[in-house]
């Protein structure tokens, strides 16, 4: 991270914290004027949420590039943080009571937390992806996985034909075929555990002693592809995570809209004068 980027982020974070603190303090002193800040903080929150949702709209309209998406994203991130603080100010830092309020509270909190998780992931995952094997496009991973599986299968057949040995074939049938048939070790990759990779390498080392030089050459090629498949699994795991949090963040953001509408309706219809 460059110094300029770091400073820019620091300034933006500072501004967000200051603005949120002003809102929180303003809400806290409202009671000193026998006023309720709930109405005002609620509308601030609603407006910010609408703006945050607009980011998704903006992404769907590449033909109308109203401000660069990069800036939208940055605004989304910082306003999201701001909305989180305003939200807890709005709820007076206490748990809700009614089912509707609970639902709204949970949805917002999940959206907020998933958003924070998303920020963290977008900050740490790219460097990890770059540092671990070849960085590939997520959508192409299945094709690459199929390609590797096909190549390994071809090498195994070749080993049987040329080396007249079933050792590699047995290794393939017992260990490699299940490994190559789909994404594996998701949890281990998510936790950055590499035990499974060492186990695979030990399997190869154990077989190697029984093979002739030609067979070892083929085994090296197979091992290279198996390890490439493991790297693909790593890519798949972390790219799934970096794309998966949106599966929570975005749908719940949409679910929040009707809940917000009813929340506002009920509060204005039955507030008995106190919002």
């Amino acid at each position, binding site marked *: 991270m460059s110094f300029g980027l770091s400073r820019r982020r620091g300034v933006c974070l500072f501004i967000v914290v200051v603005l949120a603190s002003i809102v929180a303090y303003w809400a806290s002193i409202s009671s000193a004027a*026998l006023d309720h800040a709930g109405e005002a903080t609620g509308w601030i929150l609603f407006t910010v949420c609408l703006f945050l949702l607009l980011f998704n709209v903006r992404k769907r309209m590449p033909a109308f590039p109203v401000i660069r998406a990069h800036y939208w994203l940055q605004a989304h991130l910082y306003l999201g943080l701001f909305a989180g603080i305003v939200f807890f100010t709005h709820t007076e830092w206490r748990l809700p*009571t009614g*089912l509707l309020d609970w639902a709204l509270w949970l949805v917002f909190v999940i959206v907020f937390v998933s958003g924070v998780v998303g920020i963290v992931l977008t900050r740490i995952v790219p460097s990890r992806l770059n540092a671990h094997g070849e960085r590939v496009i997520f959508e192409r991973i299945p094709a690459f996985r199929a390609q590797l599986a096909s190549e390994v299968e071809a090498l195994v057949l070749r080993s049987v034909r040329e080396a007249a040995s079933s050792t590699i074939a047995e290794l393939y049938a017992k260990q490699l075929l299940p490994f190559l048939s789909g994404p594996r070790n998701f949890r281990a990759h998510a936790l950055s555990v590499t035990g499974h990779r060492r186990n695979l390498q030990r399997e190869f080392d154990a077989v190697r002693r029984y093979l002739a030089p030609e067979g070892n050459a083929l085994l090296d090629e197979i091992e290279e592809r198996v390890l490439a498949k493991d790297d693909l699994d790593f890519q798949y795991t972390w790219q799934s995570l970096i794309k998966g949090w949106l599966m929570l963040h975005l749908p719940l953001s949409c*679910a929040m*809209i009707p809940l917000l509408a009813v929340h506002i309706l009920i509060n204005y*219809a039955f*507030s008995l004068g106190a919002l």
Partner: protein
Amino acid sequence: MRLQLFGHRDSRYERPTVNWCCGGSDQCSLGPDASGGCRAGPMCHPVRVDGIFKCARSGVSGGPCGQGPGPRGECGCVVPTCIPQPTLRAKRGRLSRWAALVALAVVLIALSVGSREHWLAGPLSSAHQEIGECSQCHVDANASASVWLHQAMSPTDPEAASKSCLSCHDRGGEALAMAPHNQPPAVLQKWRDQTQALAGDGAEPSEFRLASAVFGTATAGSESGVACATCHQEHRGGDDFTAMSDAGCQSCHTVKFDRFPDGHPDFGNFPYRKRQNIAFNHASHIDLHFAKSDEAMRPENCTNCHAADSAGMGMLLTGYEGTCAACHDGDIRKGPTSGPPGGPFLAVPGLDLDTLAAEGVAIGYWPDSFYEGIPPIMRALLSVGYMDVTKLALLKDVDLLDLSSASPDVLDAVATLAWATKAMMADMLQSGVLSDAGTMRATFGSKLTPAEISRLGGSVPRDVLASAADAWFGCLLYSEVAAHQDGNPPATLTLDDHVDGKSPVCAGGEAIALTADDAKPDEETVPSGLDALAGNVLGGSIMGDAAASANEGGGDILGGSIMGDAAASANEGGGDILGGSIMGDAAASANEGGGDILGGLANGGDATTSEATISDSASDEPAIIVPDPVDPAEWAQHGGWYRTAEAVYYRPVEHADGFMRAWLDFAGVAYGTTEGRGLGEAIFDAMGQTTSLGRCAKCHSGTEQADGSVTRNWHSTVLDTAARTVTQFRHAPHLTIAGDKGCNLCHTVAKGEAMMTSYKSFDAKGFVPGFEAMTKDTCATCHAGTEAGSECQHCHNYHVGTFSTVSRMGRLMTGTGREPEK
């Protein structure tokens, strides 16, 4: 090894916005169409060049295949079909739409079902748990969502909304329900002035200055008042429905501060802002009286006399019996420092009969034994329909025994007094004391209850009244009253002047009127007239005049069972001397001019006659022993009713004597009326002084109310648990931490008698406390942080006043659950 190649020849372009991707394992280069259909099939359309079909597969797909097209131009590389799969983005989009739709559906369903109140809002506070229906507070709760929308768009009326709360909660009536602290502006202004006077010079905390600048001044003081929902946030469950922040409490206050120790106004004269009901000088009792008293009677500490109430709030007196009675019980039965030991209830006011007769003012028969003036209680009784209050007032400063210079109006008032006295006594004997409660209420505007009226009557025995009437007016009472009511009042007449002080006589059980004709004004003729009367009477059964019968020798003197004249019997040596159980005017005859022998026993008559033993003069008859004369007042030493020749008296029986309390209470009410003020003052003079009958006023102070009436403080100052005061203090939790100083830690007794001077008046405001002023530093020793609590609500209430309990009473139901038939 490198898997991914870039370049238009090496890699197809991945479009991030496509919704479908190939479902096959080899990810064909064609990919699905926009609607998710598989486009698999030949990888190219071979082109015919010079009659030969050539492969046209694109470079991205690997370029021309080695296999080449078939002889008919069909592609030799056919991609197997697949079921295209949605992309992650498409899945996310679908999920988002479904999530929104599900949320909307859930909301709509929930809005349309009947029990929507159970999820739309949070649980009610514990105090409101019994409210079952939303509509009990929210009028439109059961309406459609469109009505809700309309309601939401309509401007909110906090005042109208608060009426829902006030339909159950009493907060001082409609006028004060939403007023700050439920108090009128004048009270608020008074509080404001007091607080500002006690406040220090500390600057207003910045929080409040900023809040004022941002939000403006709090609206609590405006005409709209403070809506309930301003402070009470419902639907949060729990018990903190009344919780309020310190900032919120101070928002309307002119004196604002951060913390209790650092800015709270001084206590001023708190808690001694009200004169104590019981006039008790702690200093003199501790320094003087207790020091002299017996050790057994001397309290050791404050809790010997004071104990926390059941709520632990106030320190109550443990009661008269346990505290004061040992030393002060004797005071109660004491009479006033001068005069008879009892209080006069009824009396025969002494009148200047000569002047009345001379002026032709007819009042009928009037006895010679008299009471000087009109007893205040009797004035009150007379004013209940018997005599106009203004006429009574006219006689206030008149010497009734010397009417020689009285004006005609005064003479008329005196005549009215005489006839009112007779009429009242006749009514009392016929109907009871204060039988006309309605007139009494109408006269004094008092809401007297039957029990109070009963106490005013003191349950005086009828026999006491009867004997008094008999002694004072004899049988003439009813006849004279009847004659007066018929417009034929008999002239002023006294037997004392004309027939040796004998009582009026009756015959045959019927009253004989002493009419003006009978009572001849000529002094010389009157005796003969009365003699004639006596002669007529002697045969009667009620009363025989001994002297007359003895002298005249006529009739059966003692034939009557009621009255026997002892003297006559004694002289004649026959008859049952004391056959009459009520009255024997014996002494006059027995001793020839003596007094009433048994007056003190039977009718309270003049018992000053010397002891007489009738048997002395009739040695052959059994000895008749007449006991020593009894002093009626002494006879009633333990309290109760007694009668003398001129009045009926009452002596208090015990502490909290009902008769005394009733009349002092009545006097307080009368004191507040224009007509009755003088009467009230008279009763207070007679019964409400520190040295007067019963000594009630020695301890029980009187407090003048706003309407002018005076409330006698019968109870020690007690904390009205039903009343919510601005400041509340729980004594109970503090009793264990007071240390060696005990109660003196906060309550330091003030020396001197200054505090007692204020009890000389009914004004409870201008008083000197019996304790030194308290300081907040004592409290701040503990109440400085969160440990002991220093929030506003720790000591203060917002709602101030006495409010009735929540009124959500059901209607009467029969056992079957139906309303009773009307």
